[in-house]
């Protein structure tokens, strides 16, 4: 097999716990060697179940998972050679940090001397070299997280799985650890499958993101692709902030389209929807790509009533009522001598065709 073959592939994988509801409906997913792939989705979307099936803690009710070309069907978890980092770290409380990290080597009957050097190296990677003799209970949450990471890396597994590993940390530490895990991934050339419900975490760290919803991967793409070209309104809403306007498709032409809003206004947008005049579509508009009082040549313009303004330091959020959608948010950059809108003002908003994406309306 060549390097371009996927390291892991899910083929038509289904999972049900009660025989009635499919938690994972039809998972087809290839994970490339050396990539950082994130499974992103709200809770109950099937992302953790998919990870647990890969780790071997859950058995698929249908379909097959392969690792490096080998089916995992009959491989128990301890023979899969996959490192797992758990949300609550699962460090063994009766062992020191060093013993924890040495555990995977000890059960593999690695010689004591080699264990020692490899443990030291792994602890250095996570910058914990000096704390080897402590017990997990004596460490802070961030340090415990690093130990869990070192333990999952020390036996050089084919694949590292992380199940919301930063969920228990505060915001600042979480952002710091995101960058650190990303660097470790790059430096060691690991293949990482990461599960999170935090979209900003996914955007920061991943090479590719699989967005899960109701047991189905909605879109598998790079962070940039997900943000700029969401394939449906769930992804558009889940990744970043989004405003939605309903309308009817009039014409599709070479990636562009014309949409008539419910009040009759015609909008020029990129087409991300199916073809066929008369179908219901949702227009997806990012708050930072909308101008207030736009220049004359702006392609699309709408009237809006100011509901509320919220000061955010570097920018201001203006909540507007646009065509009956009173949760329409616009991010306004702060500039000197700019007139700040007041609630009740009626003003004009505008956006370019490339910043407006027409998607199939959710059912």
């Amino acid at each position, binding site marked *: 097999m060549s390097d371009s073959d996927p390291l892991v592939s899910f083929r038509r994988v289904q999972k049900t716990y009660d025989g009635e509801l499919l938690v994972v409906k039809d998972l087809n997913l290839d994970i490339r060697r050396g990539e950082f792939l994130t499974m992103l989705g709200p809770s109950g979307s099937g992302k953790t179940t998919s990870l647990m099936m890969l780790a*071997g803690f859950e058995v698929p009710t249908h379909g097959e998972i392969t690792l490096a070309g080998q089916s995992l069907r009959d491989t*128990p*978890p301890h023979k899969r050679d996959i490192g797992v980092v758990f949300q609550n770290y699962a460090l*063994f409380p*009766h062992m020191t940090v060093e013993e924890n990290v040495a*555990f995977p080597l000890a*059960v593999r009957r690695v010689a004591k001397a080699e264990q020692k050097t490899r443990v030291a190296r792994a602890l250095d990677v996570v910058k914990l070299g000096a704390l080897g003799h402590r017990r997990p209970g004596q460490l802070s949450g961030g340090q415990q997280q690093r130990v869990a990471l070192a333990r999952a890396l020390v036996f050089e597994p084919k694949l590292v799985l992380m199940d919301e590993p930063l969920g228990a940390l505060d915001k600042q530490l979480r952002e710091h650890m995101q960058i650190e895990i990303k660097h470790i991934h790059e430096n060691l050339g690991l293949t990482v499958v990461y599960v999170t419900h935090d979209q900003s975490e996914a955007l920061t760290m991943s090479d590719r993101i699989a967005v899960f919803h109701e047991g189905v991967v909605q879109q598998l793409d790079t962070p940039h692709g997900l943000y700029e070209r969401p394939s449906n309104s769930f992804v558009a809403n889940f990744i970043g902030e989004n405003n939605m306007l309903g309308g009817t498709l009039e014409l599709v032409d070479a990636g562009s389209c014309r949409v008539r809003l419910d009040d009759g206004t015609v909008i020029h947008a990129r087409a991300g929807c199916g073809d066929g005049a008369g179908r219901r579509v949702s227009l997806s508009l990012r708050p930072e790509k909308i101008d207030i009082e736009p220049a004359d040549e702006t392609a699309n313009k709408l009237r809006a009533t100011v509901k509320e303004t919220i000061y955010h330091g570097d920018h201001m959020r203006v909540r507007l009522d646009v065509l009956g959608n009173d949760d329409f948010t616009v991010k306004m950059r702060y500039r000197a001598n700019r007139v700040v809108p007041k609630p009740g003002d009626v003003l004009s908003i505008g956006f370019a065709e490339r910043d407006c994406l027409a998607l199939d309306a959710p059912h």
Partner: protein
Amino acid sequence: MRPEVPLTSPSLAAPLGATGTSLKAQLHRAERMRKLRAFALVLPLLVFLLITFVAPILDMLRLAVVDRDLSSVWPHVTQSIGAWTDRSKVPPPAVFDALATDLHDSYHARTLPLAARRLNYALDNGRTLVFGTARRLPETSADWRATLIEIDPHWGDLKTWAAIDQASGPVTSFFLLAAVDRQKTADGHIVSTPSSQAIYVEVLTRTFKVSFTVTLLCIVLGFPVAYLLATQPPRRANLLMILVLLPFWTSLLVRTAAWIVLLQEHGIINHALVWLGIIDAPVRLIYNRIGVYIAMTHILLPFLILPLYSVMKGIKPSYMLAAKSLGASPTEAFIRIYLPMTLPGIGAGALLVFILALGYYITPALVGGAADQMISYFIAFYTSDSVNWGMASALGSVLLVATLLLYWVYDRLVGISNVKLG
């Protein structure tokens, strides 16, 4: 550069609060009311424990060494026995005179049985000696020594006088020595009790052996049950928990009696074993050690299961998953990860079962044979049958000391902070 600001070190003087008094004093005042209230809440229990637990133990320790039975009825001889200095000969005549006075007085005061009973603890013939002599005692005698020895030659025996000396109080080591099969000779040496009479060391060893075996059986049988309870879905775990607790709702006596029915020679268990072809003829399962082990293990099992269950309940399943993902086989993950994490529960349960088993009395008395009686049986015998409080207290004290000693060793080996009851 910032200009240097002169620093007033707060560490030089105690920090002052708003009213000028030190912060520490303010804290103390603020805390005092809270502490007093907390103390008032525990006070009833504290008093209750002092009266019903601490005081009886102290009294028991006192009774093990206090000995006033003889001196209360024979005041003269127990006082004058101090004149007996040369322990190679019988005491001087004055002591015999005092004995004659006491025998005479207590015979008329009808307190002779008290003295006879006390001397009988130490002398095989104590009762006959006292009663026989008192009956045949003349009113007067010129030489009481000769008269008394003439009535009963045992009065010329050094052993008799050593017994009177050791029983003359107010404190004695007689009971404590007897509780460990030791006795004092006439010249004050401590020697082993003749093997025909020595039983307590064996009983004590037996008590510890039975308790240890029962604890071991409880661990072996209780561990899987606790594991089952901790890993089943809540609904089924609750049902199982009720089954575990069910024995608690029945009286100890009823449960023990039930075992007699089950284990007897023509009982259900023997019939079942014969029917299954495991044995050819009924075996003896009761009135021997097997019966004691079965009944005690059954009764004490919940005390091991409960603490172990609560510890197991606290072990998150992710530990085992982590161990497996790191390459440990299920067996290895169990031995290296799960088992060590349950040790505090095993420790607590084992300690509880062991200490409870040490004091078991009814169960061995009902389902055990004569050779299976534990130390509490003898304590009960001395308190209720023979009313020998000194001996009962001494045996109790020995058991208490042995248990504390064992607890200390346990603390050294396992560490009591590693024990978790819930």
